[in-house]
């Protein structure tokens, strides 16, 4: 008896490993997605290790050294220095820390409520629960997320916490709409009907029967959205409604540097490229996942 369970577990584990290997095979067919993954891995690594590998970690805070101000890129300062002498390469590495952290926190705050509400609305389709949830969702989707996020941070005090809350607040409706459409078709599947007949609780049906079948589209959307959230975050800090200086946000660095174009081009071009590269990496990975999971409408 015990050997049998052991054998079953082993078989299940082998199957899972085969699935993973197969998934990776499909993913690696697209060279762009593999490049995206490699680039992202590098960015995450340097962001985590920024305090140790940045040439001038002290420059990520309030720091001035006018003797080194406005230096062009060189072996000493890869990306040059800004108008008060801070090393832009070091600040870019620390800027990535903020971008990635904000992306992760916003999705963590926004996805869970969106998914739960979407599951509930989809499973209870045709009842007042669906009407209330989906009409509220419509209201949040009535203006582009950037406008609502800007308006909310502007009315509150601009800082890191409010910025993350504002973006999360405009982000959940996209997930409730996605999961709603998935759940409302899944609820007619036989495995859900079977669970209903055997008297499973609503909690069990929502989270054990329907939710696991929504994972692929949710994962794909989250990857693509990391790029979008970072885009919105950098936009907010560009206009001055994000993290406040002297903390290094990539958007703020672009805005600061743009005032000194065209002479000191490096102080805006390099942070701008840094933003584009991380968003591009997430998009390429998302596209790869879309192919692996064979999902279309996310």
């Amino acid at each position, binding site marked *: 008896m015990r050997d049998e369970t052991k054998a079953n577990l082993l078989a299940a584990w082998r199957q899972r490993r085969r699935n993973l290997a197969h998934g990776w095979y499909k993913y690696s067919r697209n060279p762009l997605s593999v490049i995206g993954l490699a680039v992202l891995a590098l960015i995450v690594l340097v962001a985590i290790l920024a305090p140790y590998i940045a040439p001038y970690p002290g420059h990520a805070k309030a720091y001035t050294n006018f003797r080194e101000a406005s230096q062009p890129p060189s072996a000493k300062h890869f990306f040059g220095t800004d108008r008060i002498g801070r090393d832009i390469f070091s600040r870019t590495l620390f800027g990535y820390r903020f971008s990635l952290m904000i992306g992760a926190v916003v999705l963590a705050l926004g996805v869970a409520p969106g998914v739960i509400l979407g599951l509930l609305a989809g499973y209870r389709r045709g009842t007042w629960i669906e009407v209330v949830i989906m009409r509220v969702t419509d209201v949040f989707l009535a203006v582009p997320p950037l406008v609502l996020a800007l308006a909310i941070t*502007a009315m509150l005090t601009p800082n890191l916490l409010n910025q993350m809350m504002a973006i999360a607040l405009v982000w959940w409706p996209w997930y409730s709409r996605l999961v709603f459409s998935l759940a409302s078709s899944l609820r007619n599947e036989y495995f859900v009907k079977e669970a209903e007949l055997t008297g499973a609780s609503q909690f069990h049906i929502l989270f054990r029967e329907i939710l696991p079948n929504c994972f692929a589209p949710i994962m794909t959307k989250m990857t693509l959205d990391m790029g979008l959230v970072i885009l919105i975050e950098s936009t907010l800090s560009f206009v001055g409604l994000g993290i406040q200086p002297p903390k290094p946000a990539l958007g703020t660095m672009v805005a600061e540097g743009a005032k000194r174009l065209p002479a000191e081009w490096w102080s805006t*071009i390099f942070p701008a490229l840094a933003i584009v590269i991380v968003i591009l990496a997430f998009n*390429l990975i998302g596209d790869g996942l879309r192919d692996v999971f064979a999902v279309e409408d996310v």
Partner: protein
Amino acid sequence: MAKYISLRLLQSVFVLFGLSLLIFFIARVVPGDPARQALGLLASQEQVERVREQMHLNDPFPVQYYYWLRSLLRGDLGVSSYTRRPVTTDLRQYIPATLELILFATLISFIIGQVTGVLAGYFRNSWFDGASRLVSYLGIATPSFVIAILLLFVFSQLLKLAPGIGRIPIMMKAPPTRTGFMMIDGLLAGRLDVTLTALKHILLPAFSLAVIHIAQEGRITRTSIVETMQKDYITLHKVHGIRTGRILFKYLLRPSIIPTVTVMGLDFAFLMSNAFLVETVYMWPGFSRYAMTAMLNKDLNAIVAVVLVIGLTFALVNLLVDIIIMFLDPTVRLRQGGA
């Protein structure tokens, strides 16, 4: 059909009502006294109390909302604490400049998006297809303020091919405002030089706005063309010896119109939100820059108005798109009209 349209209209009204409730709620729960903000720091406590009474700030939230909604429906959005003028006056002054910019951007993205999409689809897997794919990836991954700064840097500051910021040079005397569209006003006043200068000034900001949408519309057209090319009737036309150009425009392009129109409708609202950044970079004196100024100065009445205007535009454009699609696509017409 009338039933479908009126149902959609009702839905839009509901959504806008919800949006007004949401944004009004946020504007009222934020810390700070709206009356104090409207009067400035120099006003006495008595004056502030009087204005609080006038603005119904001492009443419970639903009552405040009722009074606010009532004046909103009369076209009164309150006074901007930054410009010290009625918000509706401000909006009327600034909206045409943004509209001019957005329409121009739509035109550019439609033309370039269609051409690249058709070429990439027709010559699938060619170098052109690969290049347009790469450009569309970059277009989607680049924030609009980065595009705006890069274009300004390269074309205006390095190559000196385009003028820099603003609608027309400060030294140039603007024609009297009739439509608010600088190019049309120039023509109406018989000043061709203004129209031409305005055209030169609008190219860079409009293109900065259009880049993302060129990428998206190009991809959609390409996908549709590739799909349609595999259809039997296209092969039949080819076998019958119908000219390539005719096949392309008469049979291949037509199915792609419907997704393109849908996306262009969605894009219109996104153009408005991206214009926030492009207008900031190019100092374009439009609605979006006004919105940005309002946000940076915590001008509550103006922020609320801006969000509502964008919501209203979004709703109207979506309604328009649905109606256009109903005319373009007989299957939708039959399904929705319940013929």
